[in-house]
């Protein structure tokens, strides 16, 4: 089953043409996949196939505990967007609808090493001395 239709695929492919450095999509699921686990994995596989700059790894949340620990993944479905290092970007749940674009955007940002934030924001964030864990709750609209 293919999740992305032709127009969405074409649009995503167009945006992924801008990729500079390789990006790894790391997905966590489990052997008996929950509904959204299976769909998320397939979606990420399909995204990874859209550009030669993208690679894909899938791990089992239960049996690949070392990987789950390495990426600090504590729930599934989980997707980590990794560049030359782990920038701490996680998607939990299936990023469908509007959030599909968010994933593509995150991939492009990591590949270009450019967050797109304002200069003042970057300056402020660089002053952080303690961990800052942000969680953004969204719904697929």
């Amino acid at each position, binding site marked *: 089953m293919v999740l992305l239709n032709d127009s969405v695929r074409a649009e995503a492919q167009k945006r992924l043409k801008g990729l500079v450095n390789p990006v790894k999509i790391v997905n966590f699921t489990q052997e008996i996949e929950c509904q959204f686990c299976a769909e998320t994995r397939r979606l990420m596989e399909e995204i990874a196939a859209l550009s030669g700059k993208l690679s894909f790894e899938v791990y089992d949340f239960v049996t690949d505990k070392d990987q789950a620990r390495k990426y600090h993944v504590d729930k599934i479905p989980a997707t980590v967007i990794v560049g030359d290092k782990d920038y701490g970007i996680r998607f939990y*749940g299936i990023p469908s609808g509007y959030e599909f674009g968010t994933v593509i955007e995150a991939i492009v940002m990591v590949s270009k090493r450019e967050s797109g934030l304002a200069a003042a924001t970057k300056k402020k964030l660089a002053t952080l001395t303690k961990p800052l864990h*942000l969680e*953004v709750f969204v*719904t697929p609209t």
Partner: protein
Amino acid sequence: MESDKVTADMLEAMEFPHLSQRYGVMGVPKTVANGKGVAEGALPEEYLLANIFALIEKDSGS
């Protein structure tokens, strides 16, 4: 990406109802920083940043 201190999670609210409930997610996007709500709805970048730093300063002061 701008600081190694930052981890950013995007969560699908319906798939993680226990977390949505814990943080009282009524509308989206809801932003939580270090386990405390800092924004409901899409805020301009500078306001969101100000809210996050206000929380950090409050937490480090107490």
